[in-house]
């Protein structure tokens, strides 16, 4: 598979008057052509800032303070606004979590769609045809009339579909989906996820899916990175993650999911709360909440290390985490793969 994106040791900081918030603190990952890469973590762990930096859309005063974002061997982190504009939409596009506020309330859907392929030299008829095709693609009924409506005339799910249509307007190779279903109700969530999966296959694009929902990861992703306090603490393929999690944080997240075995009993939560990104502890950022933490955890930051081929964790104690039981048995793996083929 061709490597599309390689993020190397990305650092994003929000300098303030009194303190600097290190929102992304040395994140590295790769995304290949045609795969769905998941980025999972709690709110405020730096997932969204990682996504925004991939398009040079960090909110002021946030800035990339280190590392590289190599998109097909060009470094996005070093691009000028003009160069970024060529990447935005055409190569990489973005959908946000809040469909209610992500469309301009005073412009017709038509105009907002047209903007997506404004750079291309199209006639009026071609533009209209393309816009209608896009709305059809995302499953919006009677697109001809919907084109001239305003966002407030669309329901939440329809707006999210419209946003996806706009994001796909210039046929990007990589779609960044920042919690695309968080604001939608469950049935619509499922529809949108299925739509994304189907579009990925039809158009052959890659998706980076940001979410805090492990269920969504299981449904959608080929590979996953778990983020905590601005760092990737565990990264592997989805099946491995769910069958053999190796980081205490990932394990904790899985323990907090409801399952058949734990039905009726209280769900287990990870004690404590995420650290303040402006005052990170000296050692492992997860140490204060970790059941297995020892002195070295509180003293030194763990480096990312490979525990098996393609499975990386940031933990001082891989020998302890070896015993973790995943949510699925290794034998489920074949079952899942069969599901995929079906």
């Amino acid at each position: 598979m061709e490597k599309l994106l390689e993020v190397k040791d990305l650092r994003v900081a929000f300098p303030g008057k009194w303190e600097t918030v290190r929102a992304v603190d040395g994140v590295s990952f790769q995304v290949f052509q045609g795969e769905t890469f998941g980025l999972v973590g709690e709110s405020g762990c730096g997932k969204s800032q990682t996504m925004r930096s991939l398009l040079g859309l960090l909110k002021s005063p946030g800035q990339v303070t280190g590392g590289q974002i190599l998109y097909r061997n060009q470094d996005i982190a070093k691009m000028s606004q003009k160069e970024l504009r060529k990447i935005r939409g055409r190569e990489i596009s973005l959908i946000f979590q809040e469909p209610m506020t992500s469309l301009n309330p005073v412009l017709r859907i038509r105009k907002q769609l047209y903007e997506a392929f404004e750079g291309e030299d199209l006639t009026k008829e071609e533009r209209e045809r393309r816009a209608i095709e896009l709305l059809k693609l995302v499953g919006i009924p009677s697109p001809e009339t919907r084109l001239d409506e305003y966002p407030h005339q669309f329901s939440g799910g329809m707006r999210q579909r419209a946003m996806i249509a706009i994001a796909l307007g210039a046929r990007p190779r990589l779609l960044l989906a920042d919690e695309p279903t968080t604001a939608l109700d469950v049935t619509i969530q499922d529809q949108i996820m299925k739509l994304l999966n189907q579009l990925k296959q039809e158009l052959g694009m890659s998706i980076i899916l940001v979410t805090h929902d492990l269920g969504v990861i299981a449904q959608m992703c080929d590979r996953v990175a778990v983020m905590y306090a601005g760092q990737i603490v565990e990264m592997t393929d989805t099946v491995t993650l769910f069958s053999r999690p190796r980081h205490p944080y990932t394990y904790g997240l899985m323990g907090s999911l409801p399952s058949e075995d734990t039905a009726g009993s209280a769900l287990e939560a990870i004690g404590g709360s995420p650290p303040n990104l402006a005052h990170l502890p000296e050692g492992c950022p997860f140490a204060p909440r970790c059941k297995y933490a020892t002195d070295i955890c509180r003293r030194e930051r763990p480096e990312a290390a490979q525990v098996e081929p393609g499975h990386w964790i940031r933990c001082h104690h891989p020998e302890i985490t070896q015993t973790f039981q995943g949510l699925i048995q290794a034998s489920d793996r074949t079952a899942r793969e069969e599901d995929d083929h079906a």
Partner: protein
Amino acid sequence: MIPVLFVVTILVFSIIRFIPGEPARLILGEKATPEAIAALTEKLGLTEPLISQYFLFLRQIFTLDFGNSFTYQMPVAKLLASRFPVTLALTLMSTALSLLISLPLGYFAGVHKDKLGDQAVRTASLVAISMPSFWVGLLLMIVFALKLRWFPAGGWADTLGGQFRCLILPAITQSLMTTALLLRNTRNCVVDITRMDYVDFARSKGIPDSEVRTRHVMRNAMVSTVTLLSMRMAATLGGSVIIETVFSIPGMGKLASDAIFGRDYAVVQFVVLMFAVLVLVINLITDILYSFLDPRVSL
């Protein structure tokens, strides 16, 4: 709108009659004999019962025959027709000036929130809001008319170009407050709007920044700008009474204040009514503009 206008006619009619002072005595002067005053009062129709005076006023409105002014010795309609364009020109000039200054500067300040430029713009607008317009008018007169001799200190000219020159200082004076208020409003709108996801989403499409600015940021800022502007235009019309008096410009504001001091009932009634109609027209235009600016509003 019609019921509002009806109430306005009652208000206009009664307010002028509540002001103390006999019109006939003011017209004839201190030394007039009681007989002459009585005769003039009779002639002015002021001995009639109030209710029939009011119906006469209403009939004049509907027939568009506004009667004659006693102090100017000419038909009120003609008087209004000659004064109205001056006030209209002054209002339009000051409004245009406000928009030209406040929109770009407001955008600039909003985008550079809390930076030096923003602080400077905000301080300047605070100063502008705090200065009373008659005082600013006098200051401008001293600097630009008396010291630098760029513009006339007041009065009116016969040629169109001359009249334009006469309107510059008054327009600046009048626009100051509106500019400052619009500036602050635009700045705050830009700060709020640039935080919205749809602006980032627009940028993520790879469209040029100038389009993000006009189509997404300023387009959305227009909704509240129009609200504020219509309120300010109504206030500006009221303010023209002061400005036109300070610069002695023959507009409706000056006419209104002269007529009130001279107890020229016929003129006062119709000037004030005209102001009221103008404010209503501005509101109507605003409502229509709304439906274009914000599709969520329907008439």
